[in-house]
């Protein structure tokens, strides 16, 4: 007799950030397919896919249906912090486990959530440590008019203050706002050393396209002079911006498809067999793929999908992933993750220009604030 464990897969594959959701869902599906092909074992896994289409209320309704009606005790999903915060109370009520795989702004460590995406001490802090000494300290902050943009820029202001840097401008746009003319004019007059882009979705894409036009007209705004730097821009969205339009700009991730390791070679081969050879692999594809395998491993080793047992199994294990071995900290439920800085290429993939090995997550940034100024050491 085989026990079937149902796993909710909750990503928006339509709506303003659909490209990210599709990568997440595809990564999850790849892992489930791999498990299904390996016959035997006492437990089989069945994904339950839904699409909330970017609507907060739909996240709530679909998560409730997964937990209450479909018998899922684990949900892998949500992309925005808004959706995650929406779903967490339900997860707590049903004593389930949410697997959150996206980079986010930190300041959360819920016992019912496993965090395998990066938080600021894993993306923004090492980014500034690398970039400020090389690129300059006069920074223009751009943000989505929403918690990601607000918090990322708040942390950026603090880091710049401690590093003797300067915020030369700060602007916010709604996620779906694509009128970026004033913003471009502002950047043109203030001439920052680089632009920290915490816009998301269509407004981010529109900005990068408009900035390309600015750079074409005025070489002082070409990416090698004044790059746009993001902490969440991946291979998933480069096609949406338009191939070649964001070339030369930078982004941080714990995984890039071009990562040259034997583990990633194997992953790329499997992904190519499943999706075709042209598919660019992002940290979202990889993150969802890793989360599903981690969940399946933990359920098998715990012999049950009971969340407390699964959590203990996760805390006790070291997982092999395409980005290298990964551990979950029992204190924070966050993954230790490597830092990679990538430069966008014409073909929509990234050249990795700087890396650091796995950094333990510090979601409340206690180490950095504890150390005060010493936290922004230059690492070369």
């Amino acid at each position: 007799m085989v026990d079937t464990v149902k796993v909710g897969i909750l990503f928006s594959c339509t709506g303003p950030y659909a490209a990210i959701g599709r990568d997440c869902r595809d990564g999850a599906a790849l892992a489930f397919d791999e498990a299904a092909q390996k016959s035997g074992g006492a437990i089989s896994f069945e994904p339950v896919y839904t699409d909330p289409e970017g609507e907060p209320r739909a996240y709530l309704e679909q998560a409730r249906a997964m937990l209450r009606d479909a018998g899922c005790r684990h949900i892998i999903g949500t992309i925005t912090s808004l959706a995650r915060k929406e779903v967490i109370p339900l997860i707590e009520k049903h004593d389930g486990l949410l697997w959150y795989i996206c980079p986010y702004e930190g300041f959360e460590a819920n016992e019912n959530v496993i965090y395998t995406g990066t938080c600021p001490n894993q993306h923004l802090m090492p980014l500034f440590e690398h970039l400020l000494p090389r690129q300059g300290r006069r920074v223009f902050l751009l943000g989505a008019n929403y918690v990601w943009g607000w918090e990322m820029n708040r942390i950026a202001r603090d880091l710049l203050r401690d590093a003797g840097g300067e915020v030369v401008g700060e602007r916010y746009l709604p996620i779906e706002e694509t009128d970026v003319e004033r913003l471009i004019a502002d950047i043109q007059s203030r001439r920052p050393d680089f632009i920290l882009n915490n816009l998301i979705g269509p407004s981010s894409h529109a900005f990068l396209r408009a900035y390309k036009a600015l750079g074409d007209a005025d070489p002082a705004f070409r990416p090698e002079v004044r790059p746009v730097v993001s902490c969440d821009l991946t291979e998933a969205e480069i096609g949406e911006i338009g191939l070649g339009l964001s070339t030369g700009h930078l982004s941080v991730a714990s995984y890039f498809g071009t990562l040259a390791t034997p583990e990633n070679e194997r992953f790329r081969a499997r992904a190519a067999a499943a999706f075709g050879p042209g598919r660019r692999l992002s940290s979202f594809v990889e993150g969802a793929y890793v989360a599903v395998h981690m969940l399946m491993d933990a359920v098998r080793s715990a012999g049950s999908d009971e969340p407390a047992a699964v959590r203990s199994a996760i805390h006790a294990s070291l997982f092999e992933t395409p980005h290298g071995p990964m551990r979950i900290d029992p204190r924070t439920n966050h993954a230790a993750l490597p830092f990679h800085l990538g430069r966008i290429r014409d073909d929509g993939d990234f050249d990795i220009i700087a890396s650091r090995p796995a950094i333990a997550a510090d979601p409340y940034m206690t180490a950095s604030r504890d150390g005060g100024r010493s936290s922004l050491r230059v690492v070369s």
Partner: protein
Amino acid sequence: MTAIPDLVGRRTVILHRPDENTQRLVRQLGLLGLDAHVQWAPLDLEATPADIVLVDADQGWSGLLPWSGEPAPVPLVALLQSEAPGRVAWAISEGALAILPKPVVPAAVYPALVLAVTAHTRATEVAVRMERLEERLRMRPLVHAAVRAIEMAVRCDEEAAYAVLRRAAMKRRITIEQTAAEMLAGVIPLSEAG
């Protein structure tokens, strides 16, 4: 924008019977970089120094906190499940500046601490400012007396006399009230023209 206080390294004392709530609280405080000490006995701040105190407002009694009746010397957060008005009133009278509902939800801990610490800092600043203003108010008659004395000594009008007093105060970097007191006591000569 309001500056967020840095909580890292602050010592917290939780006055509550050890249970699941205190366990969750200690874990979350650890994540926030704070030391936590749990006890269910009256607090002695000398034996157990604390920068922030969290108290069980459901079961707390007067005398549990050492400052009963006085303004709380440290930020106080009330741990509260009850809706009974008397318990809320007890928390307020002990000086609670934020409420953390029970059962404790980890996500509620950080905002409650930040609120309590910020409110306590502000309350302390206001108290200091008020004390200073009250002091000045008490000394106001001295200023009038000094102005009159200057008017007579240098034969000028009230406005000019006040200007003399003010210059003397600025020169010494002390308050006008203090200058007035010193002039009347003869420490500063009345005829001093600044």
